């Protein structure tokens, strides 16, 4: 076979191979779906203030300290009571600093006597009624709605039970309260 014809055969084979390569490559398609989602709202319900309400503090009840937690998720107070009937009232303010309306979904109060340094069992409502130290609250209830940018101030009252006639037991000399407010997004409808 002459060189010229050989060259033609080689070129033809090369062209055919190239067509086959192109054809194989085109039969494999990758489709891409790309999504971007953003959360554009903030949830931020917090305690902004806790103060003694001097007007409603009675007898020799004294507030020794109030502390607001750094993240605004907790507040602490410490009171001193002298005689039956003494009260100390605290104004606690909650603010919705986020962008979503909130609702008070649940409220739990847990009181324990800790006079001996070892916490007792959680007091039942019946036990609380006769306990020397009694905690109560007012101005807030379950399902209260807290709209965006609004505040809610309620009161926590600690009282030396006016019905106490005897010296309290050692464990009753000191009593702790943990009040938990569970706020959730207020879903309407």
């Amino acid at each position: 076979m002459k060189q010229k014809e050989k060259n033609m055969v080689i070129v033809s084979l090369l062209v055919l191979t190239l067509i086959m390569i192109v054809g194989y490559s085109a039969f494999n398609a990758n489709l891409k779906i790309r999504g971007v989602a953003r959360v554009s709202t903030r949830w931020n319900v917090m305690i902004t203030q806790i103060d003694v309400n001097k007007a409603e503090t009675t007898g020799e009840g004294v507030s020794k300290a109030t502390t607001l937690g750094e993240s605004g998720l907790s507040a602490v107070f410490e009171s001193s009571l002298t005689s039956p009937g003494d009260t100390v009232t605290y104004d606690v303010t909650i603010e919705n600093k986020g962008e979503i309306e909130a609702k008070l979904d649940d409220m739990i109060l847990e009181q324990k006597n800790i006079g001996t340094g070892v916490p007792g069992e959680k007091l039942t409502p019946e036990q609380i009624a006769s306990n020397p130290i009694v905690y109560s609250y007012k101005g807030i209830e379950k399902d209260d709605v807290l709209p965006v940018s609004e505040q809610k101030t309620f009161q926590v009252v600690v009282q030396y039970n006016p019905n106490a006639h005897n010296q309290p037991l050692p464990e009753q000399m000191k009593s702790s309260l943990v009040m938990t407010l569970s706020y959730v997004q207020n879903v309407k409808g």
Partner: protein
Amino acid sequence: MKQNKTLLIDGLLVIVLLMVVGYAAFATQLNINGTATITSNWDVHISSIDVDPEGTVGTATNDDGVTKVNEEDSLTANFGTNLLSPGDSITYKITVVNEGTLPAKLEKITFDQKNTGGDEPSENLTQEQLLTNPIVYTYSDIQENDVLPPTIGTVTFKVTVTYNNAIQTQPTAQQLKSNLTMTLQYVENKS
């Protein structure tokens, strides 16, 4: 004798001539010429992406400026979503068509999600991380080995983006934005 020699020479010459001609004739070159033409057309692409009107929950909104099929090659579709409250979700309907002449098969689906808010994007989120991630992507109505017949093959599937209803605290900066890359690898169906 002289005449015979002449005849012999002539005869030999003829024979040689015949042999030359014959040899020349036996060396004729045969040519086979062929032409190959590709008559098929491979064309699998995304034809549309739209919000499913029945798939929007809560206050989620679609970013119209982002949600569309890439006009240049139709191999990519993008969407953008804004979520406000836990429980919000939007569902997108995406249509893939086979307008070629070869049957296609969905060989592989990859579904990668990363949190991209803040300064540093995350790695691809694991299944465990997705359970508690504020933004969650899911898909439905499509699976590997689905076949798209030639010319008329169409599949519409859904991608849903949800603000996780189990979230109770404000997401971190990184979690405030999350990206999805879903890849559908189609190949020729030869079965």
